């Protein structure tokens, strides 16, 4: 193309104009090609535009491509069936018409190749238009399939094209999250989603097996991104949005059945989780597991292995696995031996510092809300929480203390923890064994919650007040924990800062003379001004 060759035009204005001209040029060329076959060779100019390095020209070329090939597909001017090589065309006995079709089909294939290339590498606008173009091709192919088959027996769907797109999106070397999020809108369509899910599964299996599951962080991230965006509708009647309408036997099409969707979804996830995941990925999966994976699976119980394995890992991953386990236990009759023992061992100081603190305590609260739990277990939990309360910040204490009180309220026999009048006054050492892993052996019931008594001297008034509650018999009504689960230190500060009716601010009466004086002189003894 004349104008595109003059790339070194310095002025931006001229480039813009030249692009406009080029666009007009391309449009006219497309028209020419569609008009008469003698302009067929102009298609090379268009393909050349696809390879250009400038985004605008690429985009215009992509647009031209999409217009050209879509109309060609509609006119059925592309070769159908098994495509012979270009060399064979010359030798083989094809008619001119066929030759033209084969030629065009080859151009079409190469344009698809180039578009796929752009999909993974390009500029946002470029990959967006490339993706759109590809999906247009896919839609057109669905209508006018290129394979030469008996369409009464087969379902027409541009499998190859979609698979190519999916494979390209699941790059091993690049983070394709942006492209994937763009692709997500096409996943709304039932048939694309259905096929994409099976392609993803195939791809994962292929890639992971080849690499022995090692060092595929980017790939896994891409896979996770695309998978986490897939959600299966909850009812069969919602399956209405198809890209390709099957003329015959639409009802029997797998892509039109919800159960098949769910199966595909399930296979995809299981295939993905089969391989070793990095910790961050693990956490991400577990976070969305309970509300965006389990409900869409046909047999959620298949996740048991994965979840129990995760629960065994310990630390934050175990905390997150709790949620999925809870769903399984609660809705799918999972019987998990030693569940409470493991839950007990999850209680570590770090629990109070992790991001998922609120979720953990919410679930633990639910797990311990049963009134059929043995007393020793509840007492063990209470005592352990109390012991941990000696190391945690006030925000966590505001959760722990009401939590403890609720435990004691639900299990009145745990009252001995705060009220043991029979023991007399002889002092004793704390019999509780912090290091014991079995809650049945830790002797929590013989102990008392001295820790809470200690916390009555806590510096924050709200905490101290909450701890004071054990001095008197607890009220009947349970405290609402959910309100404090998400509280932050700043919110606690605001309680004091926003007090509007301050009567009079108490002042220090010892006259301040120097910066480092006062308050026991701790700072002054360890630090100097200069």
């Amino acid at each position, binding site marked *: 193309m004349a104008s595109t060759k003059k790339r070194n035009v310095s002025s931006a204005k001229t480039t813009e104009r030249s692009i406009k001209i080029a666009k007009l040029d391309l449009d006219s060329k497309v028209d020419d090609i569609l008009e008469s076959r003698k302009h067929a060779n102009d298609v090379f100019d268009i393909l050349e535009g696809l390879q250009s390095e400038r985004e605008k020209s690429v985009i215009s070329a992509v647009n031209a491509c999409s217009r050209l090939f879509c109309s060609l597909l509609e006119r059925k001017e592309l070769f159908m069936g098994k495509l012979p090589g270009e060399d064979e065309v010359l030798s083989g006995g094809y008619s001119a018409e066929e030759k033209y079709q084969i030629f065009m089909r080859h151009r079409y294939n190469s344009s698809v190749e180039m578009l796929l290339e752009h999909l993974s590498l390009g500029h946002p606008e470029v990959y967006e238009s490339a993706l759109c173009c590809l999906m247009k091709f896919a839609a057109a192919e669905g209508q006018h399939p290129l394979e030469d088959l008996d369409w009464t027996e087969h379902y027409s769907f541009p499998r190859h094209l979609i698979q190519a797109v999916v494979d390209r999106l699941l790059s091993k070397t690049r983070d394709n999250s942006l492209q994937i999020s763009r692709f997500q809108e096409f996943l709304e369509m039932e048939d694309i989603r259905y096929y994409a899910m099976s392609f993803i599964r195939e791809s994962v299996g292929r890639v992971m097996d080849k690499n022995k599951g090692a060092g595929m962080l980017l790939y896994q991230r891409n896979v996770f991104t695309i998978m986490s965006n897939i959600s299966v509708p909850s009812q069969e009647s919602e399956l209405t949005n198809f890209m390709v309408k099957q003329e015959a036997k639409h009802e029997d099409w797998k892509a039109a059945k919800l159960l098949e969707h769910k199966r595909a979804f399930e296979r995809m996830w299981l295939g993905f989780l089969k391989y070793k995941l990095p910790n961050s990925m693990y956490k991400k999966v577990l976070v969305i597991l309970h509300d965006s994976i389990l409900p869409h699976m046909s047999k959620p119980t298949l996740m048991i292995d994965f979840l129990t394995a995760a629960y065994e890992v310990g630390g934050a991953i175990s905390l997150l696995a709790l949620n999925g386990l809870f769903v399984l236990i609660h809705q799918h009759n999972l019987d998990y031996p030693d569940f409470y023992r493991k839950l007990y061992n999850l209680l570590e100081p770090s629990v109070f510092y992790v991001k998922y603190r609120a979720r953990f305590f919410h679930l633990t609260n639910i797990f311990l809300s049963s009134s059929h739990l043995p007393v020793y277990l509840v007492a063990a939990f209470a005592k352990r929480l109390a012991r941990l309360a000696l190391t945690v910040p006030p925000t966590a204490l505001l959760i722990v203390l009401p939590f403890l009180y609720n435990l004691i309220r639900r299990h009145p026999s745990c009252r001995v923890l705060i009220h043991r009048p029979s023991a007399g*006054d002889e002092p004793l050492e704390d019999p509780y064994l912090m290091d014991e892993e079995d809650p049945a052996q830790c002797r929590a019931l013989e102990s008392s919650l001295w820790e809470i008594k200690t916390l009555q*001297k806590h510096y924050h008034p709200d905490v101290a007040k909450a701890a004071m509650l054990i001095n008197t018999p607890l009220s009947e009504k349970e405290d609402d924990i959910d309100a404090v689960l998400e509280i932050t230190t700043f919110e606690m500060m605001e309680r004091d800062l926003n007090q509007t009716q301050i009567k009079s601010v108490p002042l220090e009466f010892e006259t301040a003379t120097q*910066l480092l004086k006062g*308050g026991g002189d701790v700072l002054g003894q360890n630090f100097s001004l200069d």
Partner: protein
Amino acid sequence: MGKVPKKRSLADKVRKTKTSAEIKNNPFEVKINRKKFEVLGRKSKHDVGLPGVSRSKANNKRKETLLKEYKLKNKSSKLIDRRFGEYDTNMAPEDKILKRFAMERQRAHDKKDVYNLNEEEELTHYGQSLAEMEKFNDIGNSDDESEEKGLLSADRLPLRRRGGLLRKKSSGDQQQEEEGSHRAKSRQELIEELIQKSKQEKRERQVQKEESQELTEQLDKEWKSIQALMVKKTPKSESADQPEEKPKPEEYDKMVRELVFEMKAQPSERLKTPEEIAREAREKLQKLEADRLRRMMGEEAVDSTQSQTHMSADDLNDGFILDKEDQKTLSYQVREEKCFISEEEGDEEEEDGEGSSEEEEDEEDGHSDLESEQESEDEEHNKEDEVISTKPSLSKEELKAQQEAAKAELPYTFAVPEVYGDLQNLLDGHTPDNKRIILARTQKCNHPSLAVGNKLKLQKLFGFLLKYFGEMTNLSPPDLTTVDKLIPELYTLCQMFPDEACKSLQNIFGDAACCIEKVLDCTGQPDLPKLDMLVYLKVTALLFPTSDFRHPVTTPALLYISLNLTKVPVRSLQDVTKCLVLCCLAVEYFSFSKRFMPELINFLVGMLQLAVQDKTSLGYTMVPPFRPSGKCSELLVLSDSGSSKSWSKKRLQLSATERLELNTDLDRDHHRLTCLSVTLDLLKRCCLLYKDLLSFNHIFQPVRTLLSKHLSAQTLPEPVQELHREILELISGAPVTRSPLVLEKKKPIPLKLLTPKIVEVLDYGKKRGSSREEREKEKLKHKYKKEFKGALREIRKDSRFLAREKLNEVMNRDAERKRKVKELFGSLATQEGEWKALKRRKKK
């Protein structure tokens, strides 16, 4: 007579003969009134009635009254029996007769006496004849009459009263005459006469008095007119004759008056002895301390520290109140400030306990001199110059001279900066001391009591000053001396405007915490606060009580420290230093209240872990912000264990939190060791603070394991080793056992005491609640009804009685007539019989 009355009268007769007891015991006479229910404690008179008795009584009564009246009806005259005791039924007839006889005799005797003049019985009183006495009295009366009214009336009256006495009439004519005149006047007349007499006397006396008053008045008037003449005349004559005589009486008067009005040694307020002053100061401090304790316990303050707010800018808090502040010139204030400084120095030395006692005494002496001098000056002269004021402080003349020279450059009045830039301009380029003086003068010139707008202006100054502090500390190198010097000014400002101070510091902490939270939400790696925040935290501790249960400033400040100790990762030695400052501040905050801060212990444990090389076998999970691995996990591990030998303990610089220049490994190691020693020092303090906590052992368990197993003392220098040992001793020395928890004993709720409500019921069965008049009316109505019924009943009985009597009468009359007719018929029959017999005889 009819049968019934006859019977009744017969029954009455029988009854009368019987004694009352007999009647009462007779069951036929007694009618028992049935009671519906027994009322305890009520005695009823009417449970037993004697109808027979009462009927006969009523009948008798009627006979005596009604019947008689009836009989006398339509009669123009009636017979009244005036015989003695005729109608007295109580008297026995014999008595009556006897009495009558006696009276008859007496009357006869009296009559006889009129004519029997010789036989006279003299009545005497105290051996004197009463008749004589009466005579004498009469004479005396005539004399005393006008003088004594009391006697008069007393003498007049007895005559009549004594008349009642049994007395023989005197035989004298005079007396008889008198008696006759007395007799002529009736009693009424006598009394009237008496009254008239007394009134007349009264009037007479009044008139006399008026007359004498008039006379005196007149005399006065006359005298006045004469006196005026005399007064006019005297000065002329006196001035002419004796000019020196005039001042004399005046002087004398003056003296007298002075003596009169002289203060009679009023009890003045005694000067307080030093001991008393000390005691008062101590009492005041005790009160404040008690306030602090109460707030620490979280009780609501009633009106604490109200008095604090009115302190003047330069109040030394020693109870010394300067009254005549306004009269002083500025030079005084400068000098006073000097006193302030010198005293401060004294204070410091006292606190440190290092200054030599001699110096201290000197200074104190000088100060007291100054004070006394000042007071005397106040009294004697209101305006005095700087020159004089410098005189007394001879001992420190050189120093003073220097200060004077320095101050001479500064103007004495300053406008309060309106914007922050003004303050900068005001303070820039001065030495820290001068800055302080400038601020002090600014405050004094613009004291709220001097003008209306000053309060608002000074309020702003606090915020500016805080900002200035921040700016000073953010310089490199930080200008902390200025901050240090300006602290007292900030303190006074804070005492003046607590609300403003509270608000500005709250804003600072709120913004800083908000900042950290935001960063945490986004990236999760916030930075530790800069030095200015550390200074603000320290300033907060200086200005506000840190021991309060809840305080609008210190509680957020503590939360801010907590936030930094839990959420912000420690990435460098500089961060370590900063965090140590934070920990120091936290320990200072709790030094009095001994409150428990879990984050602080966690953090200090984390610091110790930074010094441990091998973290795999710690046996204690590291708590954020520390991580068990990574490049920042071994910040305090010495690069060369030999460097501990050359280390000596010295204080860290505050500026090291911002800029740490450690070029060699040795320097770095030394810094590490210092940090470690500070950490251990803080841990020791924490041990001491928290040793009373119930869970002391569990709180310090990690410290113990770390120190005893992982951080061996051998490699550490001597002072650190000592700290190490002390901490371990403290931890192991704490009691392990404690008694199990028991709920607080509740006070048993006492039974409800139901004391009866007592309502006084005055009349049973009556409507209550109406007004008094209505009740009265009701009562009267009721009474009227009762009386009316009773009267009706009586009237009916009366009429029945009368009818009966009438019937009796008629029947009697009829019976009489019948008897008469019968008689007549009988006589006629006998006549007839006689006549017939005669006839028969004649016939025969």
